[in-house]
């Protein structure tokens, strides 16, 4: 049988907002409304999530608003701390180490060298008053690059990859359309050549033809660079197009996972059925 090791492995991730009370800290007396405790207001954003991301694959994450998708991504990218759980990266330097227990400095190193992130809102991923190529240089510098000519070359190549014309590379992304901003964000995320890329609702709010461009770009990146990606979207069409495997989240929990076409054509969990059939 095939022995394949995941590039990224999450074990029992929990993320809570709030301190909790006597009722909700004990799972047997817990009486939640969706993901929060009505007695003390604590939010269980992610509950006991385990998942594996394999080399070169795109893993889809779907679920309704508030189900915990962005919280999951933020924990993976060290944007927020976890309440408990383990995270492993298949990498010589960090082999066997729970990344969530590392120092802030090491986490920053992983972000700069091993990770790329594309946020739903380009404002979070780009400096709107830097030039496009400057945005890429910023990430290259963070990854230890010092050679200006080399950075210029890498930046131009990446912007070309995402189809930003050369003569607009010195423009600030705030002048760009939503789709162009997302493409600059993707170029920036790719600049340190990361083995792992996170994409949170990258196509939300874009019109359909621009959406198709961005989806096509993501597929091309997967094929050409072999990057492993986690793609979050509440749009099942996007997931169908991109992901080999998909997990479904509800109230902070993973309730179903499987091959993407199986999730869409033979959903097993009652919630997944509601999600899929409501769109048919």
């Amino acid at each position, binding site marked *: 049988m095939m022995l394949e090791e995941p590039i990224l492995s999450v074990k029992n991730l929990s993320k809570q907002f709030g301190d909790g009370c006597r009722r909700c800290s004990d799972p047997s007396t817990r009486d939640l409304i969706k993901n929060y405790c009505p007695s003390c207001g604590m939010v269980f954003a992610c509950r006991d999530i385990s998942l594996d991301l394999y080399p070169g694959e795109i893993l889809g994450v779907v679920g309704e608003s508030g189900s915990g998708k962005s919280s999951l991504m933020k924990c993976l990218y060290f944007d927020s701390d976890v309440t408990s759980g383990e995270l492993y990266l298949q990498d010589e330097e960090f082999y066997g180490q729970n990344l969530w227990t590392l120092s802030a400095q090491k986490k920053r190193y992983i972000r700069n060298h091993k990770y790329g992130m594309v946020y739903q809102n380009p404002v979070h991923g780009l400096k709107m008053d830097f030039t496009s190529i400057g945005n890429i240089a910023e990430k290259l510098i963070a990854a230890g690059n010092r050679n200006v000519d080399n950075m210029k070359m890498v930046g131009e190549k990446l912007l070309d990859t995402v189809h930003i014309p050369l003569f607009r590379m010195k423009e600030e992304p705030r002048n760009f359309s939503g789709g162009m901003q997302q493409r600059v964000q993707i170029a920036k995320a790719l600049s340190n050549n990361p083995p792992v890329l996170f994409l949170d609702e990258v196509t939300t709010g874009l019109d359909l033809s621009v959406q198709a461009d961005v989806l*096509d770009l993501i597929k091309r990146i997967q094929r050409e660079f072999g990057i492993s990606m986690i793609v979050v979207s509440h749009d099942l069409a996007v997931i*169908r*197009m991109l992901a080999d*495997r998909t997990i479904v989240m509800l109230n902070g929990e993973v309730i179903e996972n499987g*091959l993407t076409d*199986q999730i869409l054509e*033979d959903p097993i969990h009652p919630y997944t059925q509601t999600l899929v059939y409501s769109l048919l």
Partner: protein
Amino acid sequence: MTMLEVHNFGKTFTNHQLQTTRQAVQNIQFRLEKGQFLGIVGKSGSGKSTILKSIYRTYLPDQGHIYFDSDRFGKVDLTKITERQMIYLRKHEIGYVSQFLNVMPRTTSRELVENAILEMGESESVAQSEAEKALAHFELDKKLWDMYPNTFSGGEKLRLNIAMATVKKPRLLLLDEPTASLDQQSKVKVKEVIEKLKNSGTTLVGIFHDIEFMENLCDQVYDMNKRKLEVS
């Protein structure tokens, strides 16, 4: 050598919204040797597509076993292997063709076929030449190679579909009524295509409404009503 063996297979659908369960198929049993063509016949709703989709894991099988002789993994039970293994088999060993073309928007015919080859880890140059060969082999008009297939006719879409599924030279090819929406002339072409595949050693399982169409192609027929295999 046995390529595929379906043993005591069954599938039940539970709909939680309507609170219904439906046993779509049960006790399905057949065996297929390498290079053979098995046709499945039966009336609408008898569960033909359910069998093919369960082999391909688009449906989650829930009773019985589906043994497949994999080049990579040896003899495996398709109802038990991991998702990652199934993805591997889909990319390399098992093809699925229906009358519907489900593809990335704004991707040309040529790119679609190339991508199927690239997925197997081949180089760009191999992908380019193999894609052209496949498109020519299945007689897709050259002027369509660099067009998006959303405007293609049913027959053109189908031949592209078959080209995409067969460039991987799958050991097993599943055909779910690929000819359903085609006129007579296109059907004849598809029949030729299937004959070519068979002659090249591909093992096939096919569903066709048109029994006449299947007649000279099939080595065996599985009749859903009689639940048994007949050798033709």
